[in-house]
């Protein structure tokens, strides 16, 4: 029974972890799963704790959309089309904040939240994750860029990279710490390097047109409504920043980083250190929302995650797309052939032409550097994706598959990780990397549908499973509601009007 509209069920006022007072423990009952014991909320980190788990979202989110799809749309429709990107990324930043609300308040993933509302919803995401994310197609762009620099065939890079990812994650003591360190350095280099390249190649006019284009609200050229471009434009908005289930996985990274009540849940360890893996609690925790001190700490955590969302996620995603748009404009100015190729939609040819154009201006090394960044973006996305997928599936299996708790969380994580790696290598060698051609449309449909669905889940979970004082405000609900209508509406409109899913 859902008993979440009231304040926490009261037992002993001092019901703390294992206090063993002999009295009943205070719990928060939410949905159909076990009640959450009341624990102390840790202090929010001070400003010096700059880096948060947003690093994962940035790694996952800054992908081909930012470095290729949006520059392409700008070249085709002009910089004014970028207002749609602004909407897309801002919506994702709001989704991120709402995902963080549940994860930080309970230490549970959003999947567990979905299961509290209605278990089949969680199984839907479990299946979608497998269908959409086991195909190793995302490796190809980064590995192909690496081939351009080194001459090593991309298939070799991709297969070796896959095994390497598995080995590193299996040997790591605490996977989250390792990955946060690696991704932080990679993204730091990416951001600094992108800024410098943009400062060398771009100009004031490129930047002003890109920036002013972001505020050309309402601009929508008639060609963008054609059956060729509409699905691409909608897909680019939906996939601006993290797409598919990446936002849901973010809740697992938040928990492992110890944010909010996630501090009460142990971290996942690598396979070699599985013996040290602590017992996972069967459910999350809740803090006392009637206590003014606890609410003060909660506000601190909200400030921390808002800073993360706005500066790191929103800021870096914006910076990388603006930089790449400036780069694309500069490349098209140098070489009109680039514009034709980018408009034509052949991604590899377009990236190659952009690199050539930079080589013409700044020497072959600048061309190589451009490919270096594409490879770096690919590497970030692949590392993040493999970890996130395994984390999400292991979490759902551990908590909701009968008998799964005979294994440790580390074992399940390693099982999914190596499963997706072995499958990936087999597919790279013998099958279609993006998935069978016949189901590509279904996969694209599911990916967008999942985004609409998680907005609905967020509304349900945050408004029904959390105590009143920490529920979202009406305008926050309105934005997430708009997200649900937008993702699902555009998906079905595109299907009904043009007979194609977003791409």
């Amino acid at each position, binding site marked *: 029974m859902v008993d979440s509209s009231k304040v926490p069920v009261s037992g002993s006022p001092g019901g703390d972890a294992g206090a063993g007072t002999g009295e009943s423990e205070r719990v928060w009952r939410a949905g159909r799963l076990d009640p959450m014991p009341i624990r102390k909320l840790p*202090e929010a980190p001070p400003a010096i704790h700059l880096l948060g788990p947003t690093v994962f979202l940035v790694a996952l989110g800054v992908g081909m959309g930012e470095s290729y799809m949006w520059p392409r749309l700008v070249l085709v429709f002009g910089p004014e089309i970028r207002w749609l990107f602004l909407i897309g990324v801002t919506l994702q930043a709001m989704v991120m904040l709402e995902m963080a609300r549940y994860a930080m308040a309970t230490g549970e993933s959003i999947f567990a939240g979905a299961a509290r509302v209605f278990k089949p919803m969680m199984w839907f995401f479990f299946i979608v994750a497998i269908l959409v994310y086991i195909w190793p197609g995302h490796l190809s762009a980064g590995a192909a860029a690496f081939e351009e620099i080194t001459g090593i065939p991309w298939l070799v890079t991709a297969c070796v990279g896959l095994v390497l990812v598995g080995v590193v994650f299996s040997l790591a003591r605490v996977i989250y710490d390792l990955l946060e360190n690696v991704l932080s350095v990679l993204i730091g280099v990416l951001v600094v390097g992108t800024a410098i390249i943009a400062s060398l190649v771009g100009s004031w006019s490129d930047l002003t047109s890109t920036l002013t284009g972001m505020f050309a609200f309402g601009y929508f050229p008639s060609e963008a409504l054609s059956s060729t471009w509409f699905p691409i434009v909608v897909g680019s908005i939906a996939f601006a920043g993290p797409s598919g289930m990446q936002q849901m996985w973010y809740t697992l990274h938040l928990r492992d980083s110890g944010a909010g009540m996630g501090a009460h849940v142990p971290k996942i360890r690598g396979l070699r250190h599985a013996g040290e893996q*602590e017992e996972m609690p069967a459910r999350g925790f809740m803090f006392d929302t009637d206590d003014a001190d606890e609410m003060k700490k909660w506000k601190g955590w909200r400030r921390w995650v808002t800073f993360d969302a706005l500066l790191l996620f929103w800021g870096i995603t914006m910076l990388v797309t603006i930089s790449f748009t400036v780069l694309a404009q500069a490349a098209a100015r140098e070489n009109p052939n680039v514009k034709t190729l980018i408009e034509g939609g052949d991604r590899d040819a377009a990236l190659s032409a952009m690199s050539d154009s930079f080589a013409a201006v700044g020497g072959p090394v600048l061309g190589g550097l451009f490919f270096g960044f594409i490879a770096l973006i690919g590497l970030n996305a692949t590392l993040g994706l493999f970890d996130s997928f395994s984390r999400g599936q292991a979490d759902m299996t551990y908590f909701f598959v009968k008998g799964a708790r005979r294994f440790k969380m580390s074992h399940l994580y390693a099982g999914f990780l190596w499963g997706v790696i072995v499958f990936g290598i087999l597919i790279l060698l013998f099958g279609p990397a993006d998935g069978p051609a016949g189901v590509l449309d279904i996969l694209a449909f599911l990916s967008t549908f999942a985004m609409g669905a998680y907005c609905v889940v967020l509304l349900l979970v945050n408004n029904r499973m959390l105590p009143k004082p920490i529920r979202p405000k009406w305008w926050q609900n309105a934005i997430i509601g708009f997200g649900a209508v937008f993702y699902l509406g555009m998906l079905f409109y595109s299907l009904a009007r043009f007979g194609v899913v977003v791409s």
Partner: protein
Amino acid sequence: MDTTRLLRLGELALPGFVVGLIAGAVAGGLAGLVGQPTGWALVSMLTLGLPLALLGGGYGLLAAHRKVRIGGFAPAALFWLVGFPLARVLHEVLSRLILVGEPGLPPDPLGFLAYQGLVSAGFAIGFLWLHERLAPRWWRRVAPRNPVAADVYSAYAAHAKRVFEQREARRRARRQQRDPAARPAPGGKAKAKAKAKAAPR
């Protein structure tokens, strides 16, 4: 200023210096290669790398002496709003000096400066991001002989200590829960229910 004091200051500035140098040298330097002789390429690399490194070191000193809020974005962004365009102007002027033998500003200097000022925000994020990764570890290493480093590191350590203590307390509590000898008999109904469900299956 004696040598030891200079050395101590150098230690404080090193992480920022390295981040600036890497950023400038890798991206700017490689971009300037243009098939030129190695010596020329090196000069070009240094004209961007060195100003960024010196400025980066300067930021490190400010942070270490707590003149700017450590880890804060706004001070770093303000610092690079001035510093980054300055480094780029130096890069352009010195590159021209070497290329054509006389120094000169880029065409439309105001537009150039404004553009570099905007890009500096992006650079500041990346710089701070990397600096916050490197600096606390380095400062911890030099802390025994460098009191300023010890002081700034203690600010980072205080936070880490708090996090560690919280984690240890949770571990103790969990161990206590698992160890039946240490656990008193459960009393209330809700607690008994919660524990039963929380127990490992």
